[in-house]
């Protein structure tokens, strides 16, 4: 409940691949905005109230620089909303509501892992496709908290945005469906949860289910960041509810990060 809403300016827009963009906007905690953390997201709207789509679009925080207030999103062009986001130019304004949701508590995770009685005192961060978007700030925050994670990133084809991860990760494992780079196959082919104290994941549901299944075999705790259609992003409409083992939960407010066992276990 610390989301605020305002109009803000586009600082930069970059096209990484035909359908992948990186958008940086100004987000000033000084003006009442709260500092966004890993796994949180914003509701973005860059089109007039009377133009489609009706709803704002949820996009995860990819990166945030508290010093400059530069807030970066990494997103894939899917339909009407993201197409209009991609048309934004520096100087244009858009409306932002956030930071929304319960992200990853990197400090707590790092402390838990560091305090474990036995090794592995390591964290794996596993992303699939555009699911890598929220993982950059996660890796940064984990590294800052003392546990540089290993990144596992799976792509369909040519990878993107990986260079940013170099400084804040221990190892980077890459897999592609097409075999164009890294391991030829699914990222779950190179992930060994037994070697990690925690696995944190974001990506397509089918991938996250696969990651969770591996983790469950090894009893490795796994957190997953979910998606869902959202109207408010604030826990107010109950449009994004997912039915978990512990009852109905709003992805936007009680998530998007959940204990994978609570959402994926049969």
């Amino acid at each position, binding site marked *: 409940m610390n989301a605020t809403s305002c109009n803000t300016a586009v600082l930069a827009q970059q096209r990484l691949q035909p359908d992948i963009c990186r958008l940086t906007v100004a987000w000033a905690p000084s003006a009442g905005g709260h500092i966004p953390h890993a796994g949180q997201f914003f509701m973005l709207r860059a089109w007039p109230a009377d133009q489609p789509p009706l709803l704002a679009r949820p996009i995860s925080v990819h990166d945030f620089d508290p010093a400059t207030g530069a807030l970066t999103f990494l997103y894939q062009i899917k339909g009407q909303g993201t197409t209009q986001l991609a048309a934004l130019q520096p100087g244009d304004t858009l*409306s932002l509501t956030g930071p929304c949701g319960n992200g990853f508590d990197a400090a707590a995770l790092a402390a838990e892992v560091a305090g474990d009685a036995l090794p592995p005192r390591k964290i794996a961060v596993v992303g699939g496709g555009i699911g890598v978007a929220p993982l950059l700030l996660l890796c940064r925050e984990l590294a800052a908290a003392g546990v540089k994670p290993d990144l596992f990133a799976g792509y369909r084809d040519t990878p993107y945005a990986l260079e940013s991860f170099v400084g804040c990760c221990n190892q980077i494992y890459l897999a592609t469906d097409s075999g164009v780079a890294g391991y030829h196959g699914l990222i779950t082919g190179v992930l060994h949860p037994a070697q990690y104290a925690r696995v944190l994941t974001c990506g397509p549901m089918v991938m996250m289910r696969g990651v969770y299944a591996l983790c469950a075999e090894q009893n490795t705790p796994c957190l997953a960041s979910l998606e869902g259609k959202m109207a*408010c992003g604030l826990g107010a*409409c109950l*449009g994004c509810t997912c039915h978990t083992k512990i009852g*109905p939960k709003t992805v936007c407010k009680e998530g998007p990060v959940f204990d994978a066992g609570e959402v994926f276990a049969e």
Partner: protein
Amino acid sequence: MSDLRVPFLGLEMAGPVVAASGTFGFGPEYQDIEDLRLLGGISGKGLTLAGQPGNRGERLLETPAGLMNSIGLQNPGVQHFIDHELPAMRALGTTVWANLGGHSIEDYCTGAAMLSGTAVDIIELNISCPNVKQGGLAYGVRAADAAEVVEKVRAVSTKPLVVKLSPQAESIADICKAVEGAGADAISLCNTFQACAVDIEKRRPVFDNIFAGLSGPAVRPIALRMVWQAVGAVNIPVVGLGGITTGADALQFIMAGATAVQVGTANFIDPTACVRITKEIAQWMDAHGVANLAEVRGCAR
């Protein structure tokens, strides 16, 4: 400076704009986003006596200038609301409307009696939810059914009673007269419009319940017609809603005779909508030398 206050059922609302049920949580969700003390009130998420998890499957779909929802009255139940959500809601500095759905007349009565013993300001009786088999819509179609539930709830409730009507009512005028006769203190309308969407790739309805409720700007002209009819049918206040997204929209309802308005889907288009609309109304009043909304209420009739 214009005076936005609206006297309503013995209360004084700070402004004519009330956040509509189901679109505003119980209020705290919007606390950091806008100054809720400028609102006329907040109608909380629809409650049922025992609470329920809501619907499975798709819950939201965007349509041209509209939104379909099939939430299915997901809510924590009346007692949980009283114990856990109401205190925070009460602290927001605006009137508290408890929106009450039901599966049976007994449920409605029990819930209303429980809420009567609390700090809620208004009970908004939802006899119009199209999204659950027993969401109250059963009572919102025929005037006689509506009158029956309102009369029974009226008997056990000590709070002002606003009855929220459905656009699926057989006749708006008849149902309005019936609920007025049965003791409603005010009427709010309308709830969402029963609608349908088919996923042509899957070759089946988008929503598990087949039908879902349509709201938003798309329905505004129809909602305004129903409000016009309601105002003409009864002598109790009418709260108008359906697709209001701007101050000008709200003024259309007020000029049609609405005492106040509610704003629902617009909160999703712009989370500051309730306060923005309030301010736009004030600006219009200032620009037109209208000191109090009473001067223009119903003026278009």
